[in-house]
């Protein structure tokens, strides 16, 4: 073997020794080439000689790799550090471990709920306390704020505003004392603009969030397209005292509607939330196909973004003091209101009693307040008006009695007398006075009624007793000397004045007066006498008409009965009443 070829052989040998157990194609050739020259066991010996130490190390390495126990021990040594390193770099570890932990956790929960409960009990207690404390503190703060304003003039105008707009009072106070408040939070799928989740503060009124979500995405895209893609994209939209803050992540957009002016530090809250959501829901966001149900569980994260800050009133650094004052003020006002109210209540009651007592036919005997209710009792004539007591807290009770108050006497007389249309009753000095025209029958009865009712005095002098008038008229006779000549000295004044009394009542009573003429049947023919009788009656009628008596009232004719006297008589007919 020459020098060059021996060098070559050695090189090949090295290669062969390293690959003696390998089966790869390129080493196959080499093996065949060399195996022709050396025996296999010779080679092994040679190998040991040349690489003894390395072979031992390789075997040792092999053992360490094969032995799971050793490997575990070794991995365990570097594991903590590895985790720290990776966790600092990105979130993949969290992603990878989440399902494992979740499952383990759930299985533990299922298997040993008691053990689980026991182990977290010490944490839960303080956590619950803390969250209650927090909620109470918030409640107190807004309560203080509300109380601070409850009694001021401003407060009253806000109360009016609340009444007008139908918003809760607290809501109105907040809207006026607000530094800022996050009213709505939208979690929007970036690619589709579809709404993943939406949370709202309090009783805010809002538009359909699905549509708003779409429009926001469109506007964001519009701005981005129009003014060029910047690193962060559209961040804020401002609309009066409303602002929309937009925070973009790779898969989702967080948009919040803010009333007032939020501090720049709030941006960090949004970024935190959005990052958290991306870590937790990364896969879901990436593969979102329109089913937002899975994002229900990120509500707490979004609700954390619903922050609010009220203006601290500069005068009051310590909140408890004005609140206490407000409470005291409130109590004071309550007392004043109560006192005024009860005085007013008593005044109203006394006024009521006065008014009831003044009702004709009612006599109040007692009026008092017992157990928060008012009682009025007394006497009431059945003809008295029902007293108007609208107040449900007033109880009234009456005993029946007969009243002599003029108004009640009047009513009683009216109800019992059946007053004809031609009679008017008036009260003068407590005495009933009647005027007009009536039949005697009614007058008699009326006088009886008056006495029966117990009225001492009544004046009927103004009532013309038609029957008396009739009797007077029918008792008169006018005599004639001869022909149609009246006997001297006979006057018709009395007849005229009586007829005038009738004249006014003639319609109501259908009064008719017949003037009957007579002739002396001992002289003259029957025919002449008839003529004379008629002429005499006619003559009297003419005279009466000349005195102003309505001709329609008067009818002149001869009486068929001939008497011995030359005279005229009257006959009065009362047709009605």
């Amino acid at each position, binding site marked *: 073997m020459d020098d060059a070829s021996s060098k070559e052989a050695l090189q090949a040998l090295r290669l062969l020794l390293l690959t003696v157990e390998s089966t790869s194609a390129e080493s196959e050739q080499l093996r065949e080439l060399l195996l022709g020259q050396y025996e296999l066991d010779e080679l092994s010996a040679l190998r040991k000689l040349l690489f003894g130490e390395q072979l031992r190390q390789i075997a040792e390495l092999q053992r360490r790799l094969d032995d799971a126990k050793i490997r575990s021990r070794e991995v365990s040594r570097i594991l903590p550090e590895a985790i720290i390193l990776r966790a600092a770099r990105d979130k993949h570890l969290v992603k990878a471990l989440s399902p494992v932990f979740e499952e383990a956790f759930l299985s533990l929960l299922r298997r040993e709920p008691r053990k689980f409960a026991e182990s977290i009990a010490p944490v839960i207690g303080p956590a619950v306390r803390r969250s209650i404390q927090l909620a109470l503190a918030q409640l107190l703060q807004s309560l203080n704020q509300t109380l601070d304003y409850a009694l001021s003039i401003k407060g009253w105008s806000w109360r009016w505003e609340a009444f007008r707009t139908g918003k809760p009072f607290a809501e109105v106070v907040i809207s006026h004392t607000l530094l800022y408040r996050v009213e709505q939070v939208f979690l929007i799928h970036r*690619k589709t603009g*579809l709404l993943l989740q939406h949370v709202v503060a309090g009783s805010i009124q809002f538009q359909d969030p699905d549509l708003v979500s779409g429009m926001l995405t469109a506007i964001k*895209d*519009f701005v981005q397209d129009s003014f060029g893609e910047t690193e962060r994209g559209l961040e804020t939209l401002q609309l009066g005292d409303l602002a929309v803050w937009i925070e973009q992540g790779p898969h989702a957009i967080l948009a919040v509607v803010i009333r007032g002016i939020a501090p720049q530090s709030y941006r960090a809250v949004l970024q935190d939330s959005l990052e958290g959501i991306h870590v937790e829901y990364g896969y879901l966001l990436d593969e979102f196909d329109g089913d937002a149900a899975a994002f229900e569980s990120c509500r707490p994260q979004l609700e954390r973004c619903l922050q609010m800050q009220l203006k601290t009133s500069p005068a009051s650094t310590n909140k408890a003091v004005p609140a206490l004052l407000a409470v005291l003020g409130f109590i004071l006002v309550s007392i004043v209101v109560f006192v005024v109210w009860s005085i007013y209540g008593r005044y109203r009651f006394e006024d009521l009693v006065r008014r009831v007592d003044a009702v004709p036919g009612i006599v109040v005997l007692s009026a008092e307040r017992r157990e928060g209710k008012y009682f009025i009792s007394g006497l009431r004539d059945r003809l008295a008006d029902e007293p108007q007591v609208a107040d449900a807290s007033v109880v009234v009770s009456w005993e029946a009695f007969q009243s002599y108050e003029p108004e009640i006497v009047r009513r009683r007389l009216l109800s019992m007398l059946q007053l004809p249309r031609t009679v008017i009753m008036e009260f003068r000095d407590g005495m009933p006075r009647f005027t007009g025209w009536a039949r005697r029958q009614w007058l008699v009865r009326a006088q009886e009624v008056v006495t029966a009712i117990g009225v001492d005095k009544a004046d009927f002098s103004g009532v013309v007793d038609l029957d008396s008038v009739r009797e007077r008229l029918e008792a008169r006779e006018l005599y004639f000397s001869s022909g149609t000549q009246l006997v001297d000295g006979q006057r018709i004044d009395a007849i005229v004045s009586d007829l005038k009394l009738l004249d006014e009542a003639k319609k109501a009573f259908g009064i008719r007066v017949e003037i009957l003429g007579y002739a002396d049947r001992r002289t003259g023919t029957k025919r002449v006498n008839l003529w004379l009788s008629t002429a005499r009656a006619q003559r009297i009628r003419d005279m009466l008409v000349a005195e102003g008596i309505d001709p329609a009232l008067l009818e002149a004719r001869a009486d068929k009965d001939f008497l011995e006297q030359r005279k005229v008589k009257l006959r009065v007919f009362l047709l009605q009443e």
Partner: protein
Amino acid sequence: MQKKVCMVGGFAVGKTSLVARFVKSIFSEKYLTTVGVKIDKKVVRVNDKEITLILWDLAGEDEFLQVRMSYLRGCAGYLLVADGTRLPTLEKAADLRSRIERELGRLPFVLAVNKLDLDKQWEVDDAAIRDFGAATWVKTSAKTGEGVEEAFAMLVRQTC
């Protein structure tokens, strides 16, 4: 389940009218001219599943205004609208379709040839529609309502 669906087509082919036929809008049409899109919502039932359609009505395309492709991002499908009385609008639809496919890939769509009520004046015949090569097409009239519900129902089914 929600789905974003877009209305795409030439100028005055009836996109807005078709949406108006299909839903009761709460936004004014001003949005169309200012932002170039108006969004509406309609809940439909398909195969016993409730699907909330979020309809993006895009301002029509003409020589001054280009349809914003960014508005089409993430949509589950689109209603491609042409005006039966104007043949060029069908060409415009084809143009829009190829642009969408170039930029966003193949998306389900339904071709709606609108203004069926004016069929006396139609320039678009069935052969032309078939040549268009749409998987699904329908003749509609936003005026009479004919075919409108069907058009949207077809589109929803395509996207499921």
